[in-house]
């Protein structure tokens, strides 16, 4: 995400990449900085998990539900695994899965959406009908069924979620692109005899990017929420793989006992906070990007 912003600016301003990156970052508001810092920390945690985590991903190292202490900074989970280590490995799995799923769904849904909006005709009708049929079936239930048919590996989970998500991306991309393709500048380009690729990439895509980017931020976060919901219903990621959504679902019964009890068991709260923090961070950056690309110059 952070890499895309300067790229687009450089197209417009024709500055060198580094120069424009420096200029762009200098104008970033505090919320965007906060978001970027959080994302960088998460990415570092994800990439260097084996070196950062004090214990292994699934090593049973203590008693169940030990409180925080010098040995286990955040305490232990239901069978005595170190929570901090699982959170760090969870960053790797959760972000990895969510990123792959979202990229895949945007690649499929975005491309098809813009293409069909531009071409209309039978292709539009065909894809729209198939997508409508997919969309019309509830995600959770369809995911449950497909997972039962295909088998529950992480690859299948990514493919199925990406497929189901791409239908939603398609709808949005097509709806926004429909508004753009009737614009005069697109018609002008058509009259000029520009190729379809040129029109899509130079005329349509830049103008529908802001809502798509906003959607990307949300979709990305929805992936872990869907995984959490699947875990809640009893399917999801294979244990002992650490994944934040599943970690919240595993200790769901502790949620309603947070305040009254001693010792306080925070097991479901750490992964929930981790998810919330990342979502807020990503969307702060997205908002800033949206603001930049909207071309508004009148404000801060």
């Amino acid at each position, binding site marked *: 995400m952070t890499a895309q912003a300067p790229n687009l600016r450089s197209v417009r301003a024709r500055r060198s990449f580094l120069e424009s990156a420096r200029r762009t970052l200098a104008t970033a508001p505090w919320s965007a900085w906060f978001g970027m810092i959080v994302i960088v920390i998460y990415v570092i945690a994800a990439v260097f998990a084996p070196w950062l985590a004090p214990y292994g991903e*699934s*090593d*049973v190292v203590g*008693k*169940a*539900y030990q409180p925080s202490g010098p040995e286990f900074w955040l305490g232990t989970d*239901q*069978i*005595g695994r170190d929570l901090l280590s699982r959170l760090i490995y969870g960053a790797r799995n959760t972000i990895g899965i969510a990123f792959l799923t979202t990229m895949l769904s945007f690649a499929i849904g975005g491309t098809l959406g813009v293409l069909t909006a531009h071409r209309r005709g039978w292709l539009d009708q065909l894809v729209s009908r198939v997508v409508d049929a997919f969309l019309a079936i509830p995600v959770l239930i369809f995911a*449950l069924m497909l*997972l*039962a048919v295909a088998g*529950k590996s992480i690859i299948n989970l990514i493919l199925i979620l990406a497929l189901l998500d791409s239908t939603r991306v398609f709808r949005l991309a097509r709806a926004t692109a429909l508004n753009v393709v009737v614009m005069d500048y697109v018609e002008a380009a058509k009259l000029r005899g520009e190729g379809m690729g040129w029109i899509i990439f130079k005329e349509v895509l830049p103008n529908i990017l802001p809502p798509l980017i906003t959607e990307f931020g949300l979709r990305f976060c929805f992936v872990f929420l869907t995984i959490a919901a699947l875990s809640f219903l*009893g*399917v999801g990621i*294979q*244990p*002992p793989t650490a994944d934040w959504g599943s970690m919240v679902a595993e*200790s*769901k*019964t*502790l*949620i*309603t*006992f947070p305040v*009254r*009890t001693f010792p306080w*068991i925070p097991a479901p709260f750490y992964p929930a906070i981790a998810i919330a923090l990342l979502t807020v961070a990503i969307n702060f950056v997205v908002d800033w990007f949206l603001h930049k690309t909207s071309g508004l110059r009148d404000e801060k």
Partner: protein
Amino acid sequence: MNETQNKLNAALGQAVRGRITRREFTQLALASGVSLAAANSMFTKAYADEPKKGGNFKVGVGHGATTDSMDPGLYPDQFTGTALWGTLANSLTEIDADGNVVGDVAESFESSDGAKKWVFKVRNGITFHNGRTVTADDVIASLQHHLGENSKSAAKSLLKEVATMKADGPNTVVFELTGGNADFPYTVSDYHMPIMPKNPDGTVDWQSGIRTGAYKLDKFDPGVQASFSKNENYYKTGKGWFDSVQFLSIKDAAARTNALLSGEVHYMDRCDLKTLDQLKASPDITVSEITGYGHYIYVMNVTQKPFDDVNVRTAIKYSMPRDEILEKVFLGHGTVGNDNPIAPTVKFAIDPTPKHSYDPAMAKEYLKKAGLESLAFDLSVADAAFAGAVDSAILWKEKAKACGIDINVIKEPEDGYWDNVWLKKPFVASYWSGRPTVDWMMTTAYAADASWNDTFWKNPKFNELLVAARSESDEAKRAAMYAEMQQILHDDGGLVNMLFNSYVEAHAKNLGHGKVAANWQLDGMRVAERWWFTS
């Protein structure tokens, strides 16, 4: 017991029946030299012990599905079992709180011909909810419902040994079995076999919900709730205290707990063990824990490699950290198993030696005997088998590494677990609610021809003993036979009995009850009949 105490007890009885007031009782107690606090607690306790009529009793049950049916042959679990059998109906016999079989719809029963012939006398004057008297024909029609070629009943294989059923007069039913079975009265106490009214065409009316039990069915919404009102003509005196009873299906443990805490239900089953301490701390809630016959197990197919080698099986049995699993996953709520499916409280149960507990040295020794340096296999699990199956397997995997055993834990879909995994995959998690007799348990799951022989284990000596013990009338000889069978299963079988689980349930403090039965959850599934409100 001395005289003062006798007097006090008598006074207490009077107080409870409302003949003397609490104040009068306290004065009497104080006069007898009992402290005020002790007198108060005596009074409160006695008061709670004395059953009272009335109230609307609501139970939150962790089962129930929209596919549930009134057909007793298809009752899948505690929701239908407790509501549509324990509250609504009676079987021929019943298991009492001490685990003995006693008559229910049958007043008495006796056997002859080496337990091959059984005669059950139907209780005099017992009526259905519509006022009709129960006869021997109703009993036969009710049991016949589970037999026949097209039967889908879960009780079909339990009744397989019944050769003929005949009515001998309006009140007598005679069963001829294909082989002797001293435990036959236990079999017909099962919750799939309530007594129902016979239709004129010979079939049985299971649809209407007209039964013989302490409560009449008002409304049944499958997967949501079942509500009942009191049957004023119930044949048992001193049972069925509530005015009305409602069972709610609340599958989510946290929702169930919250419903109990906020007073929307008075009783819940299957407490979440992780939050049990917090629940116990609540002033209005009592948590009860009963060790029953149920057990959580992992079963391997002994006809498949590598489990066809008894040394491999023994090595695996030594690699499981049962104590640690009990402590961590089940937070101590249960008793560790020793690869014997017969619970310690069942008659004729033994504790086989050597005890199978976590021992990497022994595990490695047995691996060596099998000619192996290390061992790797897949273990299929899902929490559909039992809550905690996945966590237990992961913990086992971690600890088995030290024994040179590499367990690849596969989390299977909960959905369809019993179709696609159990009896299909070579090594799976499973459970049994247990059975109150050795014969019943062994016949169900370990006999060579058992339809649920999930270990595919066929031991000739074991099966010989099983048949012989059924018709053995000498108690000591029978005990010796059962002991030998349990030992053989422990040494040779494909069963890893991790632990006997406890039924952990919770209820509002203002509920009173007698001794709680251990054969099923929810006081033998008859909580609505046996419990009462104290205030």
